[in-house]
């Protein structure tokens, strides 16, 4: 007798909980069963150009009217008190006075995309950028804003975008982390690791902090005083003893997975060290990334490492520009102008160099880029004579570029002042759906069994923004 089994029955029979879900996915996609392959590569839901993604996170929230959202009306009404109904911040702060952008906007490239002169280098790739000018989100606080942009939810504990992609696609290179995060030397984003967490999924999917120094990963190097031959000898002994132990329990996949993890860790030591060793990059490459200039050196190094990580098959890289609080990030409450000059100045050239290299190596056609912060900034100043801008979650700009993206266009619009998205509004969850779609994942099908049912790991909202797609 043939009994029709439900997916859930099957899951419980093949491994229970997570392991079962992973197995299920593997079986259905690849006809392969392996219990050790929590990070094994998986086929996407449907064919897609993008295989990898880079999220350039402009932490602190860049101002749309100073970057990608040209507003002549704002210039006309500069200095007037804001009379509209929109509110600012989460605790009823005054909205203030309209403040024009001091930055010059010009049409760029063949497409004539309007970009401010904060980004002279990125502007050269105007025809590759798809600017979404009609982003909006649900919160005006950094902690919940960063969480929402990274996890789709304003609440703690949900898996982040890099974890979704790692869960959905696995990784091609087991000896480097699948999901790499690089933070700013001034600190991490508000909410720290909850921004790259795997949430309720296994920690294996979480973002791994990667640094530019000699030890890019946590505990990558043997402890002080242990040289490589000693390390190898110890690992060999461990392997021998563990294999002897396994011989009596050959069917225990967990035990063999654990044995393998030590060998992977050893390989990771060499691979990760190689990625951060920029010695074999030419002087001209180093200069293009701005490594010779104090202003751009740090973000430049991160962008260069990003290229090298992508070349090694890393699935998802997230770079943070800005860390800590207020002016150390894009959070220009006091002086948005000086602030944005600094943070755009630090990042513009390195980002352009990364784009240039991706194009040169052909990785461009398989890599998706996403640029933006947790929300936007108000077209108003916080006080007369104080060029700071407050948080604006009603409308802001982000851009996508690379594999599968239709460049040289702006989608949606904010109102005349650049305050709120009014046309083709794109919620953060819509952006997430689009990001996953470009990577071949259907956000409505990317589920994980938790709290009693198969949850959509991106949350229940979100529609793919078709206009983004090439």
């Amino acid at each position, binding site marked *: 007798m043939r009994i029709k089994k439900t997916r859930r029955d099957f899951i*419980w029979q093949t491994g*229970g*909980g*997570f392991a079962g879900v992973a197995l299920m996915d593997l079986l259905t996609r690849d006809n392969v069963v392996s219990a050790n392959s*929590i990070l094994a590569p998986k086929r996407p839901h449907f064919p897609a150009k993008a295989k990898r993604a880079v999220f350039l996170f402009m932490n602190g929230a860049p101002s749309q009217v100073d970057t990608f959202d040209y507003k002549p009306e704002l210039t006309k009404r500069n200095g007037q008190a804001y009379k509209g109904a929109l509110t600012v911040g*989460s*605790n009823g702060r005054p909205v203030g006075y309209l403040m024009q952008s001091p930055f010059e906007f010009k049409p760029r490239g063949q497409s004539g995309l309007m970009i401010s002169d904060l980004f002279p280098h990125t502007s050269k790739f105007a025809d590759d950028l798809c600017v979404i000018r009609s982003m909006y989100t*649900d*919160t005006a*606080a950094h*902690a*919940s804003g960063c969480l929402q942009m990274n996890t789709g939810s304003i*609440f*703690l*504990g949900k898996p982040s975008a890099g974890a979704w992609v790692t869960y959905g696609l696995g990784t091609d290179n*087991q000896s480097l982390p699948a999901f790499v995060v690089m933070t700013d030397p001034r*600190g*991490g984003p*508000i*909410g*720290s*690791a*909850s921004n*790259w967490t795997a*949430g*309720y999924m*296994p*920690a*294996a999917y979480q973002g*791994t*902090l990667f640094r530019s120094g000699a030890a890019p*990963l*946590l*505990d*990558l*190097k043997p*402890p002080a005083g242990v040289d490589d031959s000693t390390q190898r*000898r*110890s690992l060999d*002994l*461990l392997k021998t*003893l*563990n294999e002897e*132990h*396994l011989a009596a*329990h050959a*069917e*225990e996949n*967990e*035990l063999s*997975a*654990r044995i*393998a*993890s030590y060998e992977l*860790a050893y390989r990771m030591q060499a691979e990760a060290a190689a990625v951060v060793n920029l010695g074999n990059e030419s002087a001209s490459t180093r200069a293009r990334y701005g490594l010779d200039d104090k202003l751009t050196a740090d973000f430049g190094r991160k962008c260069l490492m990003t290229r090298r990580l992508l070349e090694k098959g890393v699935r998802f890289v997230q770079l943070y520009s800005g*860390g*800590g609080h207020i002016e150390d990030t894009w959070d220009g409450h006091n002086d948005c102008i000086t602030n944005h000059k600094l943070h755009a100045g630090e990042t513009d050239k390195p980002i352009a160099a990364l784009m240039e290299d991706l194009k040169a190596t052909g990785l461009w056609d398989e890599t998706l880029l996403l640029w933006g912060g947790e929300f936007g900034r108000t077209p108003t100043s916080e006080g007369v004579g104080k060029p700071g801008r407050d948080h604006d979650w009603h409308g802001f700009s982000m851009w996508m570029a690379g594999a599968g993206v239709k460049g040289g266009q702006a989608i949606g619009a904010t109102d005349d002042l650049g305050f709120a998205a009014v046309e083709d509004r794109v919620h953060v969850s819509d952006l997430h759906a689009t990001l996953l779609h470009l990577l071949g994942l259907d956000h409505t099908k990317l589920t994980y069994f938790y*709290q*009693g*049912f198969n949850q959509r790991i991106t949350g229940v909202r979100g529609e793919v923004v078709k206009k983004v797609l090439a």
Partner: protein
Amino acid sequence: MRSLLLGLSLVCAAAAADPDFVRDVRPLLAKRCFGCHGPALQKSHLRLDRRADALHGGESGVPAIVPGKSGESLLIRYVSGTDAKLVMPPAGPRLKPEEVAVLKTWIDAGAEWPGDTSAAIAPKADPRLAHWAFHAPKQPAIPPVKNSAWVRNPIDAFVLAKLEAKGWQPAPRAKDADLLRRMYLDITGLPPTLEEQDSFRGDWDGLSRELLARGTYGERWARHWLDVVRYGDTNGYERDAVKPSGWKFRDYVIRSLNNDKSFQRFVLEQLAGDELPDSDAETLLATGYARLGPWDDEPADPAEDRFDQLDDILNTTSQGFLGLTLACARCHNHKFEPLTTKDYYGMIAVFNGLDRPRDGRTELDRPIGKWPEIARFNEREAKIKALRDAARLAWLQSGQSKLAPEAVAAFLQAPKDREEAARKLVRDSTKALDAELAALPVEEEVARLKRETPDLPRGYFMEERSATPPATHILIRGKASSPGPEVPPSVPTLLVKEQPSFAADGMRTSGRRLAFARWVASRENPLTARVIVNRVWQAHFGEGIVRTANDFGVMGDKPSHEELIDWLAVWFMDNGWSLKKLHALILGSNTFRMSKTSNAKYAAEDPENRLLWRMPYRRLEAEAILDSALAVSGKLNRTMYGEFVYPKVQKEALEGSSDPDKIWAPFTDENKASRRAIYYIVKRSLMVPLMEVLDLCDTTRPSAKRQTTSVAPQALQLFNGDFVNRQAKHFAARLREEAGPAAEAQIERAYRLALARKPTEAERTAMTAFLRQSSLEEMCRVILNLNEFAYAN
């Protein structure tokens, strides 16, 4: 034209004044609603072409039409578009005001529905209500078995009966050394010492009694419960502040388990410790249960935030105690379980009186004790404040203060009247003024009052400030901004014949939680005993009899041994809901004492070992791995209880924080940090990396079970990280001291300490060869990384 318009509006006016169902209402519903909510399609499970269905409503659980009450009818709310987020129909033009008026008037007039026979359609019985776990367990008969010699207690009979039905044999008994280590790790989370290994004489039941009596039992098993109740020491988000006195809840759990508090009482204390007739300091600490979760102190929407926190309590309570996923019924009736929004909001009403004591963004703790003690203490505090306020005012007005006159003037202003300059003066001079005030004679009186009524310890819990909690409404689509009908407190309808009484009975609070808790902890509740018995089983065997420990609903896992779980649940209740008796029963079974040896034939047929033909392998939890390493190295600080400690964390791990210099306390005192991992701070924005990589649970929601993953970063931290290497050094020093300089003795002692067994010949040879080239520290590092160290046989 004008007359035509006038004519039309007259017709509408007539219809609105006295609408006729057949002429005015039905055509309108047919045209604009039936497409999605009619005979062919019932979006959101709503059907508007039959009166009974319309009155019942759709998945929101709220009636679409309440005859006589258009204001309470969801239909009117949607079509009138008063709430921008809730508008129907979703496509096409909006209903005209006249059309809305027609529907309103018709409903207010009683929603007459001529010719409707739907009331006669018998509602279909919900087959889900027959689900096994929704009915109180009855103790089944113990099944007969052939191999009765194997049966040490009824657990074995239930397990063996299933095996014999397949013609299978249980695995042989584990080797003594393996079983000894298994017992110690299972009950105390620590391996047996050499003395304990040497002095053991084979009395396994005596051993389990002895281990259950140790304080280390509570330290191990409390962590299982903390997983369920989403324990954390901070609230997360931007400031991620430490919850003052929050750690006392963890101690409360350890103490409760060590005292073998009945689980019934444990439930009552956590849900309603402040409402118990014999409420005291301990039960108030228990009430901290409601306040363990994360929250944003800068919420996007304060009204939503309030409900999100109630949702957190409800979710933890329904999954933790009842094994129900009731939180899924916040926006609509549960999609899979027979649970409705009424059930959801009825339980919300139970907790709706609770509030977090706070001052702006600062969370406050409260004095704990018996209520009269607390009242006396609060009275003292009020007296002291009045005395000090008066003395301060007199002092400032007396002209005796040495402060600058402007500063004195600033202090004399009401805080809200102070300009920035005055605020600065106040900020800068507060310390100086305080010093002056401390020398005033009033302090003698204050000291006397404090002697008379001493300080009370403090605790961290939510409080109900009155006997009348705010009204609770069903929220349409779960939004705080869209209240629907009011609901009284209730327990899930499917579980009771009649609701418990939620009367306040003249208490200082609403008494709702106490009534609720008494129901949760009652024998009539079909879930509570089964759910906790299953959790205990899961912690002993790695998997529960029901593998979805937080979900006993129709979507939950089918029990592998339904009769056994019911037998255990009834036995547990009959035995005073004593967890220690339950442990002793399980540990006394031959089932628990089986070896982990596999069997190719059984494994092929039952790879998940659902029938328990052997004891399953499973990795120790993060805590037990770390604690064992400390015990083996000899550096375990066995101090029990107290404030959390900060273990050493890699400097690099702090770089991801927005406050890398402030987020973690510096590591200065190794002994202080060498406590059991249950005492590590659970900081929601920075989990201890070694704990996290070893699959610490999600701390934001009730966790059903730890995951087990094996990835390279885990190996990196365990092999290269500070913690294990530090313990390896201590371990090596200990071996030198205790075993002397001879390699053979060192190897033997190392194995006995770490694995509670002697090394095999092959191991001895491998280790001896290794030590010729590598240090003893290196050998110790390898031993602490062995699979067998993390996976007890």
